[in-house]
């Protein structure tokens, strides 16, 4: 919206941030990098991945909003960016909903049943191995 907020003389009126502001954003990014490295030495169990993605997303937001000027940019560009994030979420959700639940369908569908119980039905595909040691 930056260009239309001002007098409409047809010239480009892009927002110009101060050098000190860009430096502050950079220092915040370095600080978050230190935080994420420090976090890697603390075992949070299944929250490890959540912490990593959360910190990375904070850093990415700083870059997108300020270095890439999206904070002051045309709102339509913001919409294009956010729609990409939405479709990436759909991509993850649908794919992993499949890969995480293979071999767990019921016997009526003629697939391997519940690898946790060892109960098998004919005609299915191999359930995933229990751990990383399962190589051949």
């Amino acid at each position, binding site marked *: 919206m930056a260009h239309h907020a001002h007098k409409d*003389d047809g010239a480009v009126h892009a927002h110009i941030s101060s050098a000190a502001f860009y430096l502050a954003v950079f220092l915040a*990014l370095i600080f978050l990098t230190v935080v994420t*490295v420090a976090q890697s030495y603390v075992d949070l169990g299944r929250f490890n991945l959540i912490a990593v993605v959360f910190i*990375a997303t904070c*850093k990415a937001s700083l870059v997108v909003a300020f*270095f890439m000027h999206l904070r002051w940019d045309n709102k339509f560009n913001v919409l294009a960016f956010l729609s990409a994030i939405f479709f*990436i979420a759909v991509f993850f959700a649908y794919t992993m909903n499949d890969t995480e639940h293979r071999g767990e369908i019921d016997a009526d569908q003629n697939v391997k049943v519940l690898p946790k119980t060892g109960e098998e039905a004919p005609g299915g595909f191999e359930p995933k191995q229990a751990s990383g040691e399962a*190589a051949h």
Partner: protein
Amino acid sequence: MSSEATAHAADHDHGHHGPKWLAHHFDTPAQQFDAAKLGMWVFLVQELLFFSGLFVAYGVYRSWYPEMFVAASHQLDKIMGGCNTVVLLFSSFTAAMAVRSSQLGNKKATGNYLLVTIACACIFLVIKYFEYTHKIHAGLLPGRYFNPHPEHLAPGAPPLPANAGTFFGIYFMMTGVHGVHVLIGIGILIWIWIRNNRGEFSKEYFTPVDIAALYWHLVDLIWIYLFPLLYLI
């Protein structure tokens, strides 16, 4: 200069109008700027979707083989990865400063910031080269080429399961495609640096610097996720 540009543009003269950087089919500099930015954002969005395929592959395999990912990740050098993160973040900062200088019409500062950005990009690739060389010597390669030499592995790391080649397949694909983007970014930044030296940009027209910096920030953005997901498991 800007009022002059506008006065000419307002004529709707379909001959030569406005400054020479204003394309014929645009009425005003603002319209041209908005069109260029939207075009770049659509391209960047495509890049994000393109990389998301690799991130989904990472997600699927990490959730199937979590212990293997932890063991294999210990073979990556956190120090080198961390240095590269700082180098890329700094280059993103200097790219943003190059755009700022260009917006202010400071040609010399723009050129200098672009050069620092290019230098950082080169440092990134040099560090990446040393990392790759070590992985290749240690036999930490994708898929069926995975053949680790115990004497080259990181000391004190957990034993590598036989299917760890999957991790290195994902590692080489993600960092490799990212590295290609760094290489292309260097080319684009050099081109912009040359154009800046020729005096093609001004307070009124800094769009190419802005657009090139957007591309460079995307390269940084991808690495922000790659570093913790690959090195810090």
